[in-house]
C-alpha cells in the first residue's frame, strides 16, 4: 500500500511539472467539445439545386420559390440546356437537378397533371437520400397548394384524410447536439485516458527508468495500480470539465442522476487506462504506442454507435461492438443524460465494465515482466 502511494505521489509530481500536460488535460476537452458537436451534424443543409427550365412559366417560379424558401435548398444554377446542368452535377457543384418540361404549367392547368424529372447526386448516400426526401416533401406541399388553389369544385376530396402526427420523445426538438455531446464526452475521456496511461508507461521504458523499477523489490501489481490511480483521477477531472461545458455551451443537463455518470465512468476509466497500459507493455517506443492506440481508437470509435446506429450494422459488426468499451459508455451516457435512466437500467453495463477492467488489468500485470 505504501509503495502504491509512493508511486502515485511521483506520478502527480511529474504530471504537474510539465505544463504541456496540464494544457492537454484542460484545453483539449474544451476545444474538442466546442468544435466537434458543431461539425458532427446530421442535418443536411446547403443542398445545391440546378434547374433546367424548358417552360419559363410563373408556375415554375412559384415552385422554385417554394423549394428555396425552406432555406435548406439553394438554387445555384438556372439553365435552359440539360448538358450545362449535367456538367455542374458532375463537378459536384450541384446536388439536385430538376428538369421542367415545356408546357409544364399548361399541362398542370389543363390536364390536372404535369411531371418533372428530379435527379439526385448520390455520391454521399445519406446526403442524397435526406436531400431527396426534403425535396419530395416540399413538392408534395406544393402539390397540395395548387390543388387547393385550382381545383374549385372537387367532386371528391382529393386530400387524404389520415393525418400522421408524430411526437418525439426524450429529445422533443430533435436537437442533434443533445445526442452528440454525451457521446463526444466519452470519446474525449477515452482518448485522454488511454493515451496518457500508455505514453506514460512507455516513456519509462524509453528513458530506462523502468529498469530501476524492475530491479527494485516493488511488486508488479503495485506498480501498475500506482500508475492507474493518478490517471483515473485526471479522467474524472476531464469528465467534470466536459459536463460543465456541455451545460454552459449546449445547455445539456442530465435528465438522470449525474452521480450515475460518475459511477459508470469510475469503472469505464479503469477499462480505458488498463487498455492503455496493456498496449504499452507490448511496445517499446512512444511512437509505436501512438500508432497502435490510434488503430484501436479508430475501430472503437467507428463501432461505438457515436456517429452511426449500431442496430443498423451487419450482425458481425454488432458482435464486435460488444467488445467495444466506448459503445457501452456512449449508450449509457445518452441513456442517463437524455432519458434519465436509473441505476437498474445501467447495472448490466456496469457489470460488463467490471469484467473488462479485471481482464485487462490482469492481462497488463501478467504481460509486464520485471525479468526478461
Amino acid at each position: 500500500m505504501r509503495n502504491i502511494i509512493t508511486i502515485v505521489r511521483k506520478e502527480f509530481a511529474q504530471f504537474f511539472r510539465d505544463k504541456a500536460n496540464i494544457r492537454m488535460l484542460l484545453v483539449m476537452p474544451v476545444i474538442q467539445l466546442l468544435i466537434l458537436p458543431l461539425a458532427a451534424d446530421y442535418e443536411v443543409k446547403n443542398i445545391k439545386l440546378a434547374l433546367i427550365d424548358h417552360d419559363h412559366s410563373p408556375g415554375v417560379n412559384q415552385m422554385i420559390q417554394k423549394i428555396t424558401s425552406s432555406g435548406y435548398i439553394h438554387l445555384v444554377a438556372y439553365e435552359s440546356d440539360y448538358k450545362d446542368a449535367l456538367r455542374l452535377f458532375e463537378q459536384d457543384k450541384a446536388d439536385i437537378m430538376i428538369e421542367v418540361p415545356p408546357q409544364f404549367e399548361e399541362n398542370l392547368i389543363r390536364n390536372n397533371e404535369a411531371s418533372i424529372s428530379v435527379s439526385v447526386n448520390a455520391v454521399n448516400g445519406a446526403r442524397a437520400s435526406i436531400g431527396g426526401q426534403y425535396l419530395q416533401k416540399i413538392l408534395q406541399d406544393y402539390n397540395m397548394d395548387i390543388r387547393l388553389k385550382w381545383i374549385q369544385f372537387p367532386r371528391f376530396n382529393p386530400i387524404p384524410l389520415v393525418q400522421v402526427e408524430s411526437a418525439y420523445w426524450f429529445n422533443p426538438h430533435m436537437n442533434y447536439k443533445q445526442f452528440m455531446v454525451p457521446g463526444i464526452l466519452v470519446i474525449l475521456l477515452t482518448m485522454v485516458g488511454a493515451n496518457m496511461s500508455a505514453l506514460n508507461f512507455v516513456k519509462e521504458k524509453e528513458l530506462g527508468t523502468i529498469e530501476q523499477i524492475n530491479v527494485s523489490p516493488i511488486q508488479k501489481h503495485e506498480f501498475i495500480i500506482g500508475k492507474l490511480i493518478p490517471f483515473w483521477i485526471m479522467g474524472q477531472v476531464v469528465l467534470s470539465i466536459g459536463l460543465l461545458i456541455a451545460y454552459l455551451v449546449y445547455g445539456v443537463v442530465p435528465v438522470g442522476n449525474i452521480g450515475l455518470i460518475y459511477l459508470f465512468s469510475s469503472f469505464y476509466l479503469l477499462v480505458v487506462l488498463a487498455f492503455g497500459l496493456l498496449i504499452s507493455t507490448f511496445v517499446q517506443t512512444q511512437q509505436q504506442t501512438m500508432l497502435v492506440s490510434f488503430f484501436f481508437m479508430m475501430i472503437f470509435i467507428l463501432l461505438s454507435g457515436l456517429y452511426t446506429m449500431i442496430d443498423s450494422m451487419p450482425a458481425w459488426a454488432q458482435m464486435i461492438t460488444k467488445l467495444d468499451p466506448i459503445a457501452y459508455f456512449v449508450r449509457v451516457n445518452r441513456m442517463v443524460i437524455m432519458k434519465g435512466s436509473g441505476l437498474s437500467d445501467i447495472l448490466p453495463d456496469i457489470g460488463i465494465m467490471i469484467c473488462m477492467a479485471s481482464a485487462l488489468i490482469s492481462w497488463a500485470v501478467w504481460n509486464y515482466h520485471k525479468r526478461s
Partner: protein
Amino acid sequence: MNPDNIIKVEKLTKRFGEFVAVDQISMDVGRGQIFGFLGANGAGKTTAIKMLSGLLQPTAGKAMVNGFDVYTEPEKIKRNIGYMSQRFSLYDDLTVVENMKFYGGIYGLNNKELKIKTEEIIQLLHIGDFKDKLVRSLPLGWKQKLAFSISILHNPPLVFLDEPTGGVDPITRREFWELITQSANGGMTVFVTTHYMDEAEYCDIVSIMVDGRIEAMGSTRELKTKYKAEDMESVFVTLARKSKRANQE
C-alpha cells in the same frame, strides 16, 4: 569456495538464440570487496550483471547472490541489492529530493529514515543548494554521484554498478571512486564494471571478460606479474586482442 561469499557463480551462461553473450563464467566475490568487472564493449558485462541482479533469466549455470538463487528467488535478491544501470535512471523531471523520496519509498524506508538519509547524502555530496532543483539541471558528474547514492539509499549489502563513470571527467571519476571506497569500507560489497583500466587499481579483485568468458581474475598486482605488464592497460590489451567479437567489428 567460501560459503560466506556474497556472490557465488558457477558456469553461468546466457544465450540469445545462437549468440552466447555470457559463456560459462564462474567467480566468487567476498563480502566487503570491491570487485572490478573489466571488459571491452560487448564483452557481456551488462548481461552478467543483469542476471545477477534478477533482471534477466540465465540460460544455464548456477548463481547465488546474498544466499538467494537467481532462478527461483530474484525478488528476494532485489530487496538486498543496489543497482545503478548504464543508462541514467533517475527521473530528470523530478527534483533531487523527490527522487530520493521515491526510491526511498519503494525500498520501504520510513519517513524518519528517509529524512536522515536525505540529509546524509546532501551533506556527503555537498548539494544543499540543489536539493530542490530538477535533476535534469545538474551536471553529469553530479547526476552520477547522486544516482549512486540513491542506489544505496536502503543500505544494501551489495551494489551493482554498471559503468558508473562513463563519460565523466577524471576529477569527478576520482571523487566517484572515493564514494565507492567509502561504501566498501562500511562493509558494502561493490560489483563494478568499467573499461577505464586506471580504475582497476581501486579494486580488490578484478576479472577481465573477453567474448563472454572470464579470461583472467585476481588482484591487479597478481595480474600484472602474471602477464609481465607494467600497468593494467597492457594486461587488458594483451587479453582483449584475442577477442573475435572486437575483431569482427
